[in-house]
């Protein structure tokens, strides 16, 4: 089932000259885990906002084309309606905090109360996500007294607790320690296996390559490519789009070793070690 359908989407912020999104068309199936990559200012966050309806409802500006999310045409529905189906973790965790709640617990409960989750289930869900994101010891802490990474963990926990059908994450692991980043990718991957559709913007190419079904490459609001990680990261013009291939791909490119029987280079540690393995004397 198609969960996201985008057709000829064009968008320009108010008082700006150029299109932030330039004629995008694509579809995403239920349960897919999609990675979005591209240079700074290429439109990654704007695309995220267009899926949750903040573009155009909150930002205004000039909008063309259609975005249909879980059956809802974004243009015709309020952000609050769309929010019942899609959750978003914003790029800057410093801005995600409501600022009005006194504890981590209240902060996570906020969204759940809004959608009317019953008390007992609410507490259950909160416990689960506190454990999942490893922030249970800080439940009574003031959100602004958390470290940067702990705050980001809280932001992710709040959205996962809402159990949306579609989850959009804009650089969710930028401040996480390596173990935390891996755990978040694993948790999100499990959600996608359970049928939740995931859109994630990330600069960590090794992780994108390992966990995503497909990767979208953006430049100046245009979609340059949308394909498997192997195909995307085997392109030889990546750097002109402001991104690099995973370390494993760069090694194999330098040695000109492709995945046997294909035209593509390895993109994960496993693939690379298979291609390189057994060749060491």
């Amino acid at each position, binding site marked *: 089932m198609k969960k996201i359908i985008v057709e000829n989407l064009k968008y320009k912020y108010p008082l700006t000259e150029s299109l932030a999104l330039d004629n995008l068309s694509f579809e995403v199936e239920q349960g897919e885990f999609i990675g979005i990559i*591209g*240079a*700074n*200012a290429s439109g990654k966050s704007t695309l995220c906002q267009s899926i949750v309806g903040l573009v155009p409802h909150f930002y205004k500006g000039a909008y063309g084309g259609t975005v249909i999310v879980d059956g809802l045409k974004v243009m015709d529905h309020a952000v609050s309606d769309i929010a019942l189906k899609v959750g978003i973790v914003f*790029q*800057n965790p*410093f801005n995600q905090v409501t600022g009005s709640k006194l504890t981590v617990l209240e902060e996570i409960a906020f969204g759940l109360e809004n959608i009317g989750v019953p008390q007992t289930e609410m507490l259950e869900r909160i416990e689960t996500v506190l454990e999942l994101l490893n922030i249970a010891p800080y439940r009574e802490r003031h959100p602004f*007294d*958390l*470290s*940067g*990474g*702990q705050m980001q*963990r809280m932001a992710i926990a709040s959205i996962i607790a809402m159990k949306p059908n579609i989850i959009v994450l804009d*650089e969710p692991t*930028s*401040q*996480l*320690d*390596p*173990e*935390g*980043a*891996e755990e978040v990718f694993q948790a999100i991957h499990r959600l996608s296996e359970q049928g939740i559709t995931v859109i994630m913007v990330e*600069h960590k190419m*090794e992780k994108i390559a390992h966990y995503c079904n497909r990767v979208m490459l953006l430049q100046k609001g245009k979609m340059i490519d949308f394909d498997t990680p192997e195909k995307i990261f085997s392109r030889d013009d990546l*750097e002109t789009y*402001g*991104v*690099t291939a*995973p*370390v*494993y791909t*760069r*090694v194999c490119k*330098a*040695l000109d070793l492709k995945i046997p029987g294909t035209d593509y280079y390895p993109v994960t*540690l496993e693939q*690379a*070690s298979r291609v*390189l*393995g057994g*060749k*060491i*004397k």
Partner: protein
Amino acid sequence: MIKISNLSYAYTKNTPIFSEINLEFDRRSTAIIGQNGAGKTTLAKLLKGLLKPFDGEIMIGQYNVKTVSAAELSKVIGLVFQNPNDQIFKSKVLDEVMFGPLAIKMSESAAKKNALEALELVGLHEQLETNPHDLSLSEKKLLCVAAVVAMDPEIIVFDEPTIGQDYAGKEKIRNIIQVLKKRNKLVMTIIHDMDFVAENFERTIVINEGIVILDGDTRKVFAEREILKHAHVEDPSITQLGKVLGFQETFLTVEEFVQRWKQSQR
């Protein structure tokens, strides 16, 4: 250049962040890594005198952080905040970057020269009149880097400079670290990107639960897989590849690996 002796600190009484730690810094470029909440940002704020130690002493050059004035300290050590919004407060890019130099009594012309040079380094020299709040997160971060570089302190502490940076942005940070190193500055960077650490820092310090559990040559530190794991960090991607393939060496760059691999094929 920095000597930390028996330093203890806690935000709230019963949860100490540091208990009597000792640490020294020389001019080697240094990465500080460790899990979320390990105390990295707290350490940076203690060095900069923004937090007061419970106990112990921090000497920066000949200054004791406890007694020296904030202005005097600013000439010696600069901190680029983890959250750029905590640092930015002017309404124009150029003013933001000139503020620090002027505050430490640099002349108007020297302040402007330093500011323009620093803005060129980070690639914001064409947006002098822009309001910093209209910049994106990655640009704000670069602006904060420029603001500290313009003050020309002996010691510069970056708290997670690569957050949100694309390939070009990371190259800028890499270049800035090199430039500062050539100027004989101590560059200290708190960071979660292990691949970046491997390629850019001579020394790496691993902090875990308020204790320095590894400290030394970056290559030596990244050879200690088990201890790293215990500290909730990991070795760089290229190091992992070498290990999986059974090489004894600890690789830090793609080039090193490729060269060694070719040798192994002869």
